């Protein structure tokens, strides 16, 4: 199955015309065809969450979705999080609360948190922990990530 397919992906509001094999994952397509290397590929089988992006607002594992399945959907990656030079409250909170060390898991955590907080800004602590248990971090530890997301949630509510 080496047939190539021409598709258009809408990523961070911009259209990307790419030619991919149907078996190409969204994660690989974002990185290799679209040059958006902010999305990291970790385990490549849906366990670590480092490739988490938003598809029509839902956090998804980009390694478990084929690029052809993402046509016509609104895809958001970490590259689209900041507003120009102004960091997203989540990005600022991760810096302020030491929510990252090596940074490999960070784009995935940021998109995961952005997705759940946009859906429910008043997320309960229980639901927040349930959501953040989705992704793996191997150096910072989770406490600072939880602190950062809580702080960002408060900031995002204050910003309205």
């Amino acid at each position, binding site marked *: 199955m080496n047939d190539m397919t021409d598709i258009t992906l809408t990523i961070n509001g911009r259209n990307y015309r790419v030619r991919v094999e149907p*078996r190409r994952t969204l994660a690989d397509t974002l990185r290799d065809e679209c040059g958006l290397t902010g999305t990291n590929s970790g385990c490549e089988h*849906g366990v670590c969450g480092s490739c988490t992006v938003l598809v029509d607002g839902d956090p*998804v*594992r980009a390694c478990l979705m084929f690029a052809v*399945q993402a046509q016509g959907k609104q895809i958001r990656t970490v590259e689209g999080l900041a507003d120009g030079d102004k960091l997203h409250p989540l990005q600022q909170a991760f810096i302020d609360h030491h929510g990252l060390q090596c940074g490999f898991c960070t784009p995935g955590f940021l998109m995961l948190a952005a997705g759940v907080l946009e859906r429910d800004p008043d997320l309960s602590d229980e639901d927040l922990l349930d959501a953040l248990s989705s992704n793996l971090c191997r150096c910072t530890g989770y406490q600072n990530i939880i602190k950062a997301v809580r702080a960002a949630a408060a900031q995002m509510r204050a910003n309205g």
Partner: protein
Amino acid sequence: MLAQVAPDDGRVIAGGQSLVPAMALRLALPAHLVDINAVAGFDRLAVEDSELAIAACVRHAAFQRPVAAGPLGKLLASVVRHIGHYPIRTRGTFCGSVANADPASEWCLVAATLGAKMIARGASGARTIDAADFFQGMMATALAADELLIETRLPLLALDTRCGFYEFSRRAGDFAIAMSLAAYRVEGGVIVDPRIGVGGVEGHPRRIAQAEAVLAGRAPGADVFRAAADAAAAAVDPIDGKTENVAYKRDVTRAAVRRALEAAEKSA
């Protein structure tokens, strides 16, 4: 289309949260994938004729808030928290889990315990398969290669049904080592219509008649729950795993059934 490619190693893809990892690990090498995500009506989730009809592409995440009044909606909302993680639940589907029939699938346990009806459609028409006939072994179901599970129908539970779910796994979102679903009603102080399901232990989840027999006609309480849990532990034939042997699986089964029953009693 499925009928065309099925003989040539064609597979259905809905959420892809089990199939795509299997492909990444080269455990599954399908020659063709038939993506059913865009099929009109496959996102239907509706209560009709005292059943909850769940169409082929309804995602796990749809159940995080109760989707039906009464105990069924509450039960599904508590069970769904054990399925993978949130980004898995936004893609993975209820019917996909049922068709995949992983021994540790929570939805398979729910379907087997509550007596779901599975509606399969192939080129030659549709048929309804009872849960008791549907699950046939580890990742094995009554579905033919050219049949698609288009809908699962769960019976609504009577308002006075007490139900509880308990799952033991090593990490949040990991596969169940053992899990149990308990449901019963109480009439005149004694248990009626007991249903005890066990999953993650044998090749497929199923009801454990020996445990149900212990409960029927007895007043709910710690002693009878313990006796039912012992009966379940004795009745199961656990898969001998690399990390969990048979004796351990029996022990965890006992604990899971007892805790599911305790959770059911708390729901009263």
